[in-house]
Protein backbone atom coordinates (compact mmCIF):
# COMPACT_ATOMS: atom_id res chain seq x y z
CA UNK A 1 0.00 0.00 0.00
CA UNK A 2 2.68 2.47 1.08
CA UNK A 3 6.32 2.19 0.14
CA UNK A 4 8.79 4.92 1.14
CA UNK A 5 12.41 4.76 0.01
CA UNK A 6 15.09 7.00 1.46
CA UNK A 7 12.73 9.92 1.92
CA UNK A 8 14.34 13.13 3.14
CA UNK A 9 12.76 16.46 3.87
CA UNK A 10 14.81 19.57 4.43
CA UNK A 11 13.25 22.89 5.37
CA UNK A 12 15.01 26.15 4.73
CA UNK A 13 14.46 28.52 7.59
CA UNK A 14 16.19 31.90 7.28
CA UNK A 15 19.06 30.24 5.44
CA UNK A 16 19.38 27.51 8.09
CA UNK A 17 18.64 23.95 6.94
CA UNK A 18 16.37 21.87 9.13
CA UNK A 19 16.51 18.16 8.34
CA UNK A 20 13.05 17.01 9.39
CA UNK A 21 13.41 13.59 7.72
CA UNK A 22 16.80 11.98 7.11
CA UNK A 23 16.27 8.97 4.87
CA UNK A 24 13.05 7.28 5.84
CA UNK A 25 12.32 3.85 4.40
CA UNK A 26 9.00 2.26 5.31
CA UNK A 27 6.59 -0.34 3.95
CA UNK A 28 2.99 -0.58 5.05
CA UNK A 29 0.77 -3.29 3.64
CA UNK A 30 -2.90 -3.13 2.88
CA UNK A 31 -5.01 -3.46 6.04
CA UNK A 32 -2.28 -2.78 8.58
CA UNK A 33 -2.77 -0.63 11.68
CA UNK A 34 0.55 1.11 12.21
CA UNK A 35 1.49 3.65 14.86
CA UNK A 36 4.37 6.03 14.35
CA UNK A 37 5.62 7.14 17.74
CA UNK A 38 8.13 9.79 18.57
CA UNK A 39 8.75 12.88 20.62
CA UNK A 40 7.63 16.31 19.53
CA UNK A 41 9.71 17.69 16.67
CA UNK A 42 10.92 14.28 15.52
CA UNK A 43 9.33 14.66 12.07
CA UNK A 44 6.07 12.74 12.50
CA UNK A 45 3.82 15.36 10.95
CA UNK A 46 6.26 15.97 8.14
CA UNK A 47 6.14 12.27 7.36
CA UNK A 48 2.39 12.14 7.49
CA UNK A 49 2.02 15.15 5.19
CA UNK A 50 4.23 13.46 2.64
CA UNK A 51 2.32 10.18 2.93
CA UNK A 52 -0.95 12.18 2.63
CA UNK A 53 0.25 13.84 -0.60
CA UNK A 54 -0.05 17.25 1.04
CA UNK A 55 3.67 17.88 0.80
CA UNK A 56 6.53 16.65 -1.37
CA UNK A 57 9.80 15.12 -0.13
CA UNK A 58 13.14 16.78 -0.85
CA UNK A 59 14.47 13.46 -2.12
CA UNK A 60 13.52 9.80 -2.15
CA UNK A 61 10.73 7.81 -3.71
CA UNK A 62 7.18 7.21 -2.61
CA UNK A 63 4.67 4.71 -3.99
CA UNK A 64 1.08 4.84 -2.90
CA UNK A 65 -0.92 1.88 -4.22
CA UNK A 66 0.36 1.71 -7.80
CA UNK A 67 1.21 5.39 -8.18
CA UNK A 68 4.64 6.85 -7.96
CA UNK A 69 3.57 10.03 -6.23
CA UNK A 70 6.33 12.37 -7.44
CA UNK A 71 5.20 11.76 -11.02
CA UNK A 72 1.61 12.81 -10.41
CA UNK A 73 0.03 16.13 -11.38
CA UNK A 74 -1.61 18.44 -8.82
CA UNK A 75 -5.02 17.38 -10.07
CA UNK A 76 -4.23 13.70 -9.72
CA UNK A 77 -2.90 14.30 -6.20
CA UNK A 78 -6.12 16.10 -5.29
CA UNK A 79 -8.00 13.10 -6.63
CA UNK A 80 -5.93 10.69 -4.52
CA UNK A 81 -6.50 12.77 -1.38
CA UNK A 82 -10.18 12.78 -2.19
CA UNK A 83 -10.71 9.07 -2.94
CA UNK A 84 -7.90 7.16 -1.30
CA UNK A 85 -7.13 9.04 1.93
CA UNK A 86 -9.11 10.19 4.95
CA UNK A 87 -7.36 12.70 7.23
CA UNK A 88 -7.85 13.16 10.95
CA UNK A 89 -5.86 16.06 12.39
CA UNK A 90 -4.90 16.94 15.93
CA UNK A 91 -6.66 20.31 15.61
CA UNK A 92 -9.75 18.80 13.90
CA UNK A 93 -9.58 21.21 10.95
CA UNK A 94 -13.33 21.52 10.54
CA UNK A 95 -14.73 24.45 8.56
CA UNK A 96 -16.13 26.76 11.24
CA UNK A 97 -18.93 28.25 9.13
CA UNK A 98 -20.44 24.90 8.25
CA UNK A 99 -22.62 22.49 10.18
CA UNK A 100 -21.35 19.04 11.07
CA UNK A 101 -23.33 17.60 8.18
CA UNK A 102 -21.93 20.12 5.69
CA UNK A 103 -18.41 19.47 6.94
CA UNK A 104 -18.83 15.75 6.38
CA UNK A 105 -20.32 16.35 2.93
CA UNK A 106 -17.33 18.39 1.74
CA UNK A 107 -15.11 15.57 0.35
CA UNK A 108 -18.10 14.24 -1.59
CA UNK A 109 -18.73 17.67 -3.11
CA UNK A 110 -15.25 17.64 -4.60
CA UNK A 111 -15.86 14.11 -5.82
CA UNK A 112 -18.98 15.29 -7.64
CA UNK A 113 -21.48 13.13 -5.75
CA UNK A 114 -25.05 14.39 -6.30
CA UNK A 115 -26.65 16.26 -3.43
CA UNK A 116 -29.16 13.66 -2.28
CA UNK A 117 -26.70 10.80 -2.23
CA UNK A 118 -24.12 13.02 -0.56
CA UNK A 119 -26.48 13.93 2.21
CA UNK A 120 -27.48 10.35 2.75
CA UNK A 121 -23.85 9.21 2.99
CA UNK A 122 -22.92 12.08 5.32
CA UNK A 123 -25.85 11.27 7.63
CA UNK A 124 -24.80 7.65 7.73
CA UNK A 125 -21.20 8.60 8.54
CA UNK A 126 -22.34 10.84 11.38
CA UNK A 127 -24.56 8.05 12.72
CA UNK A 128 -21.55 5.74 12.73
CA UNK A 129 -19.63 8.11 15.00
CA UNK A 130 -22.72 8.55 17.19
CA UNK A 131 -23.54 12.14 16.24
CA UNK A 132 -26.90 11.66 14.52
CA UNK A 133 -28.44 14.27 16.82
CA UNK A 134 -25.69 16.86 16.26
CA UNK A 135 -25.88 17.10 12.47
CA UNK A 136 -26.84 20.76 12.33
CA UNK A 137 -24.44 21.97 15.00
CA UNK A 138 -21.50 24.10 14.03
CA UNK A 139 -18.02 23.15 15.30
CA UNK A 140 -18.10 25.84 18.01
CA UNK A 141 -21.31 24.27 19.34
CA UNK A 142 -19.59 20.91 19.80
CA UNK A 143 -17.13 19.57 22.39
CA UNK A 144 -13.60 18.71 21.30
CA UNK A 145 -14.38 14.99 21.31
CA UNK A 146 -17.49 15.58 19.22
CA UNK A 147 -15.54 17.73 16.79
CA UNK A 148 -12.97 15.00 16.34
CA UNK A 149 -15.76 12.49 15.72
CA UNK A 150 -17.14 14.81 13.03
CA UNK A 151 -13.64 14.85 11.54
CA UNK A 152 -13.57 11.03 11.61
CA UNK A 153 -16.98 10.92 9.94
CA UNK A 154 -15.58 13.25 7.29
CA UNK A 155 -12.54 10.98 6.86
CA UNK A 156 -14.62 7.84 6.42
CA UNK A 157 -17.53 9.23 4.39
CA UNK A 158 -15.72 8.76 1.09
CA UNK A 159 -14.83 5.16 1.97
CA UNK A 160 -11.04 5.63 1.61
CA UNK A 161 -8.59 2.73 1.81
CA UNK A 162 -6.16 4.70 3.99
CA UNK A 163 -6.84 6.67 7.17
CA UNK A 164 -4.11 9.07 8.31
CA UNK A 165 -4.49 10.32 11.85
CA UNK A 166 -1.97 12.86 13.17
CA UNK A 167 -2.19 12.96 16.97
CA UNK A 168 -5.98 12.55 16.84
CA UNK A 169 -6.23 12.38 20.63
CA UNK A 170 -3.71 15.13 21.29
CA UNK A 171 -6.30 17.80 22.09
CA UNK A 172 -8.79 15.53 23.85
CA UNK A 173 -9.49 14.36 27.38
CA UNK A 174 -8.94 10.66 28.07
CA UNK A 175 -12.59 9.65 27.67
CA UNK A 176 -12.92 11.36 24.26
CA UNK A 177 -9.52 10.00 23.34
CA UNK A 178 -10.71 6.46 24.02
CA UNK A 179 -13.79 7.02 21.86
CA UNK A 180 -11.61 8.21 19.00
CA UNK A 181 -9.28 5.24 19.35
CA UNK A 182 -12.27 2.91 19.40
CA UNK A 183 -13.49 4.39 16.12
CA UNK A 184 -10.05 4.07 14.52
CA UNK A 185 -9.82 0.43 15.57
CA UNK A 186 -13.26 -0.16 14.14
CA UNK A 187 -12.17 1.37 10.82
CA UNK A 188 -9.17 -0.94 10.84
CA UNK A 189 -11.36 -3.92 11.63
CA UNK A 190 -13.31 -3.15 8.48
CA UNK A 191 -10.20 -3.67 6.42
CA UNK A 192 -8.83 -0.18 6.09
CA UNK A 193 -5.19 0.70 6.43
CA UNK A 194 -4.77 3.01 9.42
CA UNK A 195 -1.68 5.07 10.09
CA UNK A 196 -1.71 6.64 13.52
CA UNK A 197 0.80 9.25 14.56
CA UNK A 198 1.35 9.94 18.24
CA UNK A 199 3.89 10.85 20.89
CA UNK A 200 1.94 8.82 23.48
CA UNK A 201 3.21 5.26 23.89
CA UNK A 202 -0.02 4.17 25.61
CA UNK A 203 -1.97 5.18 22.54
CA UNK A 204 0.60 3.63 20.24
CA UNK A 205 0.33 0.32 22.06
CA UNK A 206 -3.19 -0.09 20.68
CA UNK A 207 -1.86 -0.43 17.13
CA UNK A 208 -0.77 -3.72 15.54
CA UNK A 209 2.64 -2.46 14.67
CA UNK A 210 4.73 0.37 16.04
CA UNK A 211 7.44 2.32 14.31
CA UNK A 212 9.54 4.73 16.32
CA UNK A 213 10.75 7.98 14.89
CA UNK A 214 13.54 10.00 16.38
CA UNK A 215 15.18 13.04 14.85
CA UNK A 216 13.97 12.21 11.34
CA UNK A 217 14.93 8.52 11.41
CA UNK A 218 12.72 5.43 11.77
CA UNK A 219 13.23 2.40 13.92
CA UNK A 220 10.91 -0.62 13.95
CA UNK A 221 9.94 -1.91 17.38
CA UNK A 222 12.19 -4.76 18.38
CA UNK A 223 14.93 -3.61 16.07
CA UNK A 224 18.25 -2.80 17.66
CA UNK A 225 19.84 0.50 16.77
CA UNK A 226 23.54 0.50 16.40
Amino acid sequence: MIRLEEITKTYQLDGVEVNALRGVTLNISEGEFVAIVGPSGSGKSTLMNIIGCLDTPTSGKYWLKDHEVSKLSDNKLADIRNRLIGFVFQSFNLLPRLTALENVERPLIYRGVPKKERRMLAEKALERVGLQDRMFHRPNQLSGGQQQRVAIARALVGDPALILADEPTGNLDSVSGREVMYLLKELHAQGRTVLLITHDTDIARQAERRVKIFDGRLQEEGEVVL
Partner: protein
Amino acid sequence: MNLLQAVRLAFGAIMSNKLRSFLTMLGVIIGVFAVVALVSIGQGATSQVTAEIQGMGSNLIVLAIRGRGGLDSLTLDEAVALAKRPGVSAVAPVVDGYATVKFATESNYTSIVGTTSAYSFVRNHFVDQGRFLADVDVQNRLKVAVLGAEVAENLFGGLDPVGHEIRINGSAFTVIGVLEEKGFSLGGPSDDFVIIPASTAERLLRRQGIRTVYLQAESAATVDLVVSGLESLMQLYFRDENAFSVFNQAEILDILDEVTGVLTLMLGGIAGISLLVGGIGIMNIMLVSVTERTREIGINKALGAKKRDILLQFLIESVVISGVGGFIGMVLGYGTVRLFSGLFGLTIAFSPQVVLTAFTFSVFVGIFFGLYPANKAAKLNPIDALRSE
Protein backbone atom coordinates in the same frame (compact mmCIF):
# COMPACT_ATOMS: atom_id res chain seq x y z
CA MET B 1 -17.43 19.79 -8.84
CA ASN B 2 -20.03 21.20 -11.15
CA LEU B 3 -20.92 24.84 -11.67
CA LEU B 4 -24.16 24.71 -9.72
CA GLN B 5 -22.30 23.32 -6.72
CA ALA B 6 -19.66 26.03 -7.01
CA VAL B 7 -22.41 28.66 -7.05
CA ARG B 8 -23.92 27.10 -3.91
CA LEU B 9 -20.57 27.22 -2.11
CA ALA B 10 -20.04 30.82 -3.20
CA PHE B 11 -23.48 31.85 -1.94
CA GLY B 12 -22.74 30.17 1.37
CA ALA B 13 -19.51 32.15 1.73
CA ILE B 14 -21.22 35.42 0.77
CA MET B 15 -24.10 34.90 3.17
CA SER B 16 -21.73 34.08 6.02
CA ASN B 17 -20.46 37.65 5.92
CA LYS B 18 -23.50 39.64 4.90
CA LEU B 19 -22.41 43.13 5.89
CA ARG B 20 -19.05 42.89 4.19
CA SER B 21 -20.58 41.37 1.07
CA PHE B 22 -23.14 44.15 0.95
CA LEU B 23 -20.57 46.91 1.39
CA THR B 24 -18.49 45.38 -1.38
CA MET B 25 -21.57 45.16 -3.51
CA LEU B 26 -22.36 48.81 -2.83
CA GLY B 27 -19.50 49.93 -5.08
CA VAL B 28 -20.98 48.01 -8.00
CA ILE B 29 -24.53 49.07 -7.13
CA ILE B 30 -23.53 52.73 -7.29
CA GLY B 31 -21.56 52.18 -10.48
CA VAL B 32 -24.35 50.45 -12.38
CA PHE B 33 -26.91 52.83 -10.95
CA ALA B 34 -24.86 55.76 -12.25
CA VAL B 35 -24.46 54.22 -15.69
CA VAL B 36 -28.16 53.46 -16.04
CA ALA B 37 -29.38 56.79 -14.67
CA LEU B 38 -26.90 59.07 -16.43
CA VAL B 39 -27.05 57.36 -19.79
CA SER B 40 -30.85 57.20 -19.67
CA ILE B 41 -31.04 60.91 -18.98
CA GLY B 42 -28.47 61.68 -21.68
CA GLN B 43 -30.21 59.53 -24.23
CA GLY B 44 -33.57 60.93 -23.22
CA ALA B 45 -32.42 64.47 -23.91
CA THR B 46 -30.93 63.36 -27.20
CA SER B 47 -34.05 61.59 -28.37
CA GLN B 48 -36.21 64.55 -27.42
CA VAL B 49 -34.11 67.02 -29.37
CA THR B 50 -33.82 64.61 -32.27
CA ALA B 51 -37.58 64.20 -32.34
CA GLU B 52 -37.96 67.98 -32.44
CA ILE B 53 -35.63 68.28 -35.38
CA GLN B 54 -37.27 65.41 -37.18
CA GLY B 55 -40.59 67.15 -36.51
CA MET B 56 -39.32 69.95 -38.72
CA GLY B 57 -39.79 67.63 -41.67
CA SER B 58 -37.02 65.52 -43.05
CA ASN B 59 -36.72 67.45 -46.30
CA LEU B 60 -36.53 70.88 -44.76
CA ILE B 61 -33.82 73.22 -45.98
CA VAL B 62 -33.10 76.55 -44.31
CA LEU B 63 -31.57 79.50 -46.16
CA ALA B 64 -30.31 82.16 -43.76
CA ILE B 65 -29.07 85.47 -45.15
CA ARG B 66 -26.65 87.74 -43.33
CA GLY B 67 -26.03 89.87 -46.42
CA ARG B 68 -23.07 91.89 -47.58
CA GLY B 69 -22.97 95.69 -47.50
CA GLY B 70 -26.29 97.16 -48.61
CA LEU B 71 -27.42 93.93 -50.15
CA ASP B 72 -28.74 92.15 -47.09
CA SER B 73 -31.88 90.31 -48.12
CA LEU B 74 -34.02 88.89 -50.91
CA THR B 75 -37.29 90.48 -51.94
CA LEU B 76 -40.45 88.60 -51.20
CA ASP B 77 -40.96 87.83 -54.89
CA GLU B 78 -37.40 86.60 -55.31
CA ALA B 79 -37.82 84.33 -52.31
CA VAL B 80 -41.16 82.97 -53.52
CA ALA B 81 -39.63 82.36 -56.94
CA LEU B 82 -37.20 79.86 -55.38
CA ALA B 83 -40.12 77.42 -55.41
CA LYS B 84 -39.69 77.04 -59.18
CA ARG B 85 -36.18 75.63 -58.80
CA PRO B 86 -35.72 71.94 -59.59
CA GLY B 87 -36.33 69.63 -56.66
CA VAL B 88 -38.11 72.25 -54.56
CA SER B 89 -41.72 71.51 -53.70
CA ALA B 90 -42.56 74.55 -51.57
CA VAL B 91 -41.03 77.71 -50.16
CA ALA B 92 -41.90 79.76 -47.11
CA PRO B 93 -40.07 83.10 -46.81
CA VAL B 94 -40.00 84.63 -43.36
CA VAL B 95 -39.85 88.22 -42.15
CA ASP B 96 -39.58 88.19 -38.39
CA GLY B 97 -39.44 90.51 -35.47
CA TYR B 98 -41.10 91.26 -32.15
CA ALA B 99 -44.30 93.14 -31.38
CA THR B 100 -46.83 93.72 -28.64
CA VAL B 101 -49.98 91.69 -29.16
CA LYS B 102 -53.12 92.76 -27.28
CA PHE B 103 -56.60 91.38 -26.72
CA ALA B 104 -58.94 93.16 -24.35
CA THR B 105 -56.79 93.80 -21.28
CA GLU B 106 -54.31 91.00 -21.98
CA SER B 107 -51.05 91.93 -23.62
CA ASN B 108 -48.13 89.83 -24.82
CA TYR B 109 -44.75 90.86 -26.22
CA THR B 110 -44.04 88.11 -28.65
CA SER B 111 -42.38 86.95 -31.81
CA ILE B 112 -44.03 87.86 -35.15
CA VAL B 113 -43.47 85.64 -38.17
CA GLY B 114 -44.45 87.15 -41.51
CA THR B 115 -44.74 84.40 -44.09
CA THR B 116 -46.85 82.83 -46.84
CA SER B 117 -49.45 80.09 -47.06
CA ALA B 118 -46.77 77.48 -47.69
CA TYR B 119 -45.27 77.90 -44.18
CA SER B 120 -47.66 75.49 -42.56
CA PHE B 121 -46.71 72.68 -44.92
CA VAL B 122 -43.00 73.48 -45.08
CA ARG B 123 -42.57 73.67 -41.29
CA ASN B 124 -44.94 70.81 -40.70
CA HIS B 125 -47.00 72.92 -38.32
CA PHE B 126 -50.75 72.99 -38.89
CA VAL B 127 -53.78 74.82 -37.50
CA ASP B 128 -55.85 73.36 -34.75
CA GLN B 129 -58.76 75.78 -35.15
CA GLY B 130 -59.78 78.08 -38.00
CA ARG B 131 -57.58 78.26 -41.09
CA PHE B 132 -53.99 79.09 -42.00
CA LEU B 133 -52.87 82.03 -44.21
CA ALA B 134 -54.07 81.90 -47.82
CA ASP B 135 -52.38 83.40 -50.88
CA VAL B 136 -54.97 86.17 -51.02
CA ASP B 137 -54.04 87.27 -47.51
CA VAL B 138 -50.46 87.81 -48.68
CA GLN B 139 -51.36 89.36 -52.05
CA ASN B 140 -53.77 91.83 -50.48
CA ARG B 141 -51.64 92.52 -47.45
CA LEU B 142 -54.56 91.61 -45.20
CA LYS B 143 -54.42 92.16 -41.48
CA VAL B 144 -55.09 88.61 -40.40
CA ALA B 145 -53.24 86.56 -37.81
CA VAL B 146 -52.74 82.92 -36.91
CA LEU B 147 -51.85 82.49 -33.23
CA GLY B 148 -49.39 80.07 -31.74
CA ALA B 149 -51.01 77.85 -29.10
CA GLU B 150 -49.28 79.60 -26.20
CA VAL B 151 -50.21 83.10 -27.37
CA ALA B 152 -53.81 81.99 -27.85
CA GLU B 153 -53.83 80.60 -24.32
CA ASN B 154 -52.23 83.73 -22.86
CA LEU B 155 -54.58 86.18 -24.57
CA PHE B 156 -57.83 84.28 -24.71
CA GLY B 157 -57.67 81.73 -21.91
CA GLY B 158 -60.32 79.16 -22.69
CA LEU B 159 -62.08 81.34 -25.28
CA ASP B 160 -62.08 80.47 -29.00
CA PRO B 161 -59.93 83.25 -30.54
CA VAL B 162 -61.04 82.70 -34.14
CA GLY B 163 -62.93 85.74 -35.47
CA HIS B 164 -61.84 88.03 -32.64
CA GLU B 165 -59.88 91.18 -33.20
CA ILE B 166 -56.46 91.65 -31.66
CA ARG B 167 -54.03 94.56 -31.83
CA ILE B 168 -50.43 94.09 -32.95
CA ASN B 169 -48.36 97.20 -32.25
CA GLY B 170 -51.66 99.05 -32.22
CA SER B 171 -53.00 97.83 -35.59
CA ALA B 172 -56.15 95.73 -35.62
CA PHE B 173 -55.79 92.15 -36.87
CA THR B 174 -58.46 89.48 -37.21
CA VAL B 175 -57.59 86.07 -35.79
CA ILE B 176 -58.24 83.45 -38.46
CA GLY B 177 -56.68 80.42 -36.85
CA VAL B 178 -54.80 78.86 -33.94
CA LEU B 179 -51.83 76.53 -34.46
CA GLU B 180 -51.56 73.11 -32.90
CA GLU B 181 -49.33 72.87 -29.85
CA LYS B 182 -45.78 71.69 -30.58
CA GLY B 183 -44.02 71.94 -27.25
CA PHE B 184 -40.31 72.59 -26.97
CA SER B 185 -38.53 73.47 -30.17
CA LEU B 186 -35.01 74.07 -31.30
CA GLY B 187 -33.94 77.26 -33.06
CA GLY B 188 -37.12 79.29 -32.91
CA PRO B 189 -40.45 79.78 -31.29
CA SER B 190 -42.83 76.88 -31.54
CA ASP B 191 -45.94 77.99 -29.71
CA ASP B 192 -45.18 81.50 -28.53
CA PHE B 193 -45.53 83.41 -31.78
CA VAL B 194 -48.01 84.99 -34.16
CA ILE B 195 -48.11 84.38 -37.89
CA ILE B 196 -49.22 87.17 -40.25
CA PRO B 197 -48.83 87.60 -44.05
CA ALA B 198 -45.25 88.39 -45.07
CA SER B 199 -46.35 91.47 -47.01
CA THR B 200 -48.18 92.80 -43.96
CA ALA B 201 -45.20 92.06 -41.75
CA GLU B 202 -42.79 94.08 -43.90
CA ARG B 203 -44.98 97.10 -43.20
CA LEU B 204 -45.74 96.38 -39.59
CA LEU B 205 -42.16 95.63 -38.57
CA ARG B 206 -40.74 98.30 -40.91
CA ARG B 207 -38.39 95.74 -42.29
CA GLN B 208 -38.05 95.26 -46.02
CA GLY B 209 -36.69 92.03 -47.45
CA ILE B 210 -36.50 88.37 -46.54
CA ARG B 211 -33.63 87.03 -44.47
CA THR B 212 -34.88 83.53 -43.77
CA VAL B 213 -36.37 81.12 -46.29
CA TYR B 214 -37.63 77.65 -45.46
CA LEU B 215 -37.68 75.30 -48.43
CA GLN B 216 -39.20 71.86 -48.73
CA ALA B 217 -37.37 69.48 -51.07
CA GLU B 218 -39.52 67.13 -53.12
CA SER B 219 -37.87 64.12 -51.51
CA ALA B 220 -34.92 63.22 -49.36
CA ALA B 221 -33.05 62.32 -52.53
CA THR B 222 -33.30 65.85 -53.93
CA VAL B 223 -32.14 67.59 -50.72
CA ASP B 224 -28.48 67.66 -51.74
CA LEU B 225 -29.34 68.85 -55.24
CA VAL B 226 -31.45 71.70 -53.89
CA VAL B 227 -28.80 72.68 -51.34
CA SER B 228 -25.98 72.84 -53.87
CA GLY B 229 -28.16 74.67 -56.41
CA LEU B 230 -29.19 77.17 -53.77
CA GLU B 231 -25.60 77.68 -52.70
CA SER B 232 -24.39 78.47 -56.21
CA LEU B 233 -27.34 80.76 -56.82
CA MET B 234 -26.69 82.72 -53.64
CA GLN B 235 -23.01 82.84 -54.44
CA LEU B 236 -23.89 84.47 -57.76
CA TYR B 237 -26.24 86.87 -56.06
CA PHE B 238 -24.11 88.00 -53.10
CA ARG B 239 -20.63 87.14 -54.45
CA ASP B 240 -19.65 86.26 -50.91
CA GLU B 241 -19.95 82.83 -49.35
CA ASN B 242 -20.17 84.35 -45.90
CA ALA B 243 -23.27 86.32 -46.79
CA PHE B 244 -25.56 83.33 -46.49
CA SER B 245 -25.76 79.84 -45.20
CA VAL B 246 -27.78 76.85 -46.29
CA PHE B 247 -28.35 73.90 -44.05
CA ASN B 248 -30.74 71.03 -43.88
CA GLN B 249 -32.16 68.77 -41.25
CA ALA B 250 -29.67 65.99 -41.91
CA GLU B 251 -26.79 68.36 -41.18
CA ILE B 252 -28.39 69.62 -38.00
CA LEU B 253 -28.97 66.04 -36.90
CA ASP B 254 -25.34 65.18 -37.67
CA ILE B 255 -24.06 68.03 -35.55
CA LEU B 256 -26.50 67.16 -32.81
CA ASP B 257 -25.51 63.50 -32.93
CA GLU B 258 -21.90 64.48 -32.53
CA VAL B 259 -22.60 66.72 -29.55
CA THR B 260 -24.90 64.32 -27.78
CA GLY B 261 -22.64 61.42 -28.64
CA VAL B 262 -19.79 63.13 -26.82
CA LEU B 263 -22.14 63.98 -23.96
CA THR B 264 -23.41 60.44 -23.58
CA LEU B 265 -19.88 59.10 -23.81
CA MET B 266 -18.77 61.47 -21.08
CA LEU B 267 -21.64 60.54 -18.80
CA GLY B 268 -21.06 56.87 -19.56
CA GLY B 269 -17.34 57.34 -18.92
CA ILE B 270 -17.87 58.93 -15.53
CA ALA B 271 -20.31 56.19 -14.62
CA GLY B 272 -17.92 53.55 -15.98
CA ILE B 273 -15.13 54.85 -13.76
CA SER B 274 -17.32 54.50 -10.70
CA LEU B 275 -18.04 50.93 -11.79
CA LEU B 276 -14.31 50.35 -12.10
CA VAL B 277 -13.79 51.68 -8.59
CA GLY B 278 -16.44 49.22 -7.46
CA GLY B 279 -14.43 46.48 -9.14
CA ILE B 280 -11.27 47.48 -7.31
CA GLY B 281 -13.28 47.30 -4.09
CA ILE B 282 -14.23 43.74 -4.95
CA MET B 283 -10.61 42.83 -5.63
CA ASN B 284 -9.55 44.36 -2.34
CA ILE B 285 -12.11 42.43 -0.34
CA MET B 286 -11.46 39.20 -2.21
CA LEU B 287 -7.73 39.50 -1.45
CA VAL B 288 -8.49 40.01 2.23
CA SER B 289 -10.88 37.10 2.07
CA VAL B 290 -8.28 34.80 0.50
CA THR B 291 -5.81 35.68 3.25
CA GLU B 292 -8.41 35.17 5.96
CA ARG B 293 -9.56 31.89 4.54
CA THR B 294 -6.14 30.42 3.77
CA ARG B 295 -6.67 27.68 6.33
CA GLU B 296 -10.11 26.91 4.91
CA ILE B 297 -8.52 26.61 1.49
CA GLY B 298 -5.91 24.25 2.94
CA ILE B 299 -8.59 22.06 4.53
CA ASN B 300 -10.52 21.93 1.27
CA LYS B 301 -7.39 20.97 -0.61
CA ALA B 302 -6.68 18.20 1.91
CA LEU B 303 -10.21 16.94 1.29
CA GLY B 304 -9.57 16.76 -2.44
CA ALA B 305 -10.40 20.21 -3.85
CA LYS B 306 -8.60 20.77 -7.14
CA LYS B 307 -7.08 24.07 -8.18
CA ARG B 308 -9.99 24.54 -10.51
CA ASP B 309 -12.51 24.01 -7.68
CA ILE B 310 -10.93 26.70 -5.51
CA LEU B 311 -10.52 29.07 -8.45
CA LEU B 312 -14.13 28.59 -9.45
CA GLN B 313 -15.39 29.07 -5.92
CA PHE B 314 -13.64 32.40 -5.41
CA LEU B 315 -14.31 33.61 -8.92
CA ILE B 316 -18.00 32.85 -8.63
CA GLU B 317 -18.04 34.63 -5.30
CA SER B 318 -16.79 37.83 -6.87
CA VAL B 319 -19.03 37.43 -9.91
CA VAL B 320 -22.06 36.84 -7.70
CA ILE B 321 -21.21 39.94 -5.66
CA SER B 322 -20.78 42.06 -8.77
CA GLY B 323 -23.71 40.46 -10.59
CA VAL B 324 -26.14 40.89 -7.72
CA GLY B 325 -24.78 44.42 -7.20
CA GLY B 326 -25.26 45.07 -10.89
CA PHE B 327 -28.82 43.81 -10.74
CA ILE B 328 -29.69 45.95 -7.73
CA GLY B 329 -28.04 48.97 -9.37
CA MET B 330 -30.05 48.30 -12.51
CA VAL B 331 -33.36 48.15 -10.66
CA LEU B 332 -32.45 51.18 -8.59
CA GLY B 333 -31.39 53.11 -11.69
CA TYR B 334 -34.60 52.21 -13.46
CA GLY B 335 -36.71 53.21 -10.45
CA THR B 336 -34.95 56.52 -9.99
CA VAL B 337 -35.16 57.36 -13.66
CA ARG B 338 -38.86 56.58 -13.68
CA LEU B 339 -39.41 58.61 -10.53
CA PHE B 340 -37.56 61.61 -11.91
CA SER B 341 -39.27 61.49 -15.27
CA GLY B 342 -42.59 61.38 -13.43
CA LEU B 343 -41.73 64.22 -11.05
CA PHE B 344 -40.02 66.61 -13.45
CA GLY B 345 -41.52 65.63 -16.78
CA LEU B 346 -38.05 64.75 -18.02
CA THR B 347 -37.89 62.67 -21.17
CA ILE B 348 -35.98 59.50 -20.35
CA ALA B 349 -34.86 56.94 -22.86
CA PHE B 350 -34.61 53.72 -20.92
CA SER B 351 -32.86 51.51 -23.41
CA PRO B 352 -32.51 47.80 -22.62
CA GLN B 353 -29.13 47.85 -24.37
CA VAL B 354 -27.63 50.27 -21.87
CA VAL B 355 -29.04 48.32 -18.95
CA LEU B 356 -27.78 45.05 -20.37
CA THR B 357 -24.39 46.56 -21.13
CA ALA B 358 -24.07 47.96 -17.63
CA PHE B 359 -25.07 44.63 -16.12
CA THR B 360 -22.75 42.62 -18.38
CA PHE B 361 -19.95 45.06 -17.67
CA SER B 362 -20.47 44.66 -13.94
CA VAL B 363 -20.24 40.88 -14.30
CA PHE B 364 -17.04 41.27 -16.28
CA VAL B 365 -15.72 43.60 -13.61
CA GLY B 366 -16.37 40.75 -11.18
CA ILE B 367 -14.51 38.27 -13.35
CA PHE B 368 -11.64 40.63 -14.07
CA PHE B 369 -11.07 41.77 -10.52
CA GLY B 370 -11.90 38.36 -9.05
CA LEU B 371 -9.45 36.46 -11.21
CA TYR B 372 -6.29 37.56 -9.44
CA PRO B 373 -7.46 36.79 -5.88
CA ALA B 374 -9.09 33.53 -7.00
CA ASN B 375 -5.91 32.46 -8.74
CA LYS B 376 -3.91 33.34 -5.67
CA ALA B 377 -6.19 31.13 -3.60
CA ALA B 378 -6.06 28.25 -6.08
CA LYS B 379 -2.27 28.29 -6.25
CA LEU B 380 -1.80 27.93 -2.49
CA ASN B 381 0.24 24.93 -1.51
CA PRO B 382 -2.03 22.62 0.55
CA ILE B 383 0.37 22.14 3.45
CA ASP B 384 1.32 25.83 3.68
CA ALA B 385 -2.36 26.72 3.68
CA LEU B 386 -3.15 24.14 6.36
CA ARG B 387 -0.39 25.40 8.62
CA SER B 388 -1.50 29.01 8.50
CA GLU B 389 -3.45 30.28 11.46
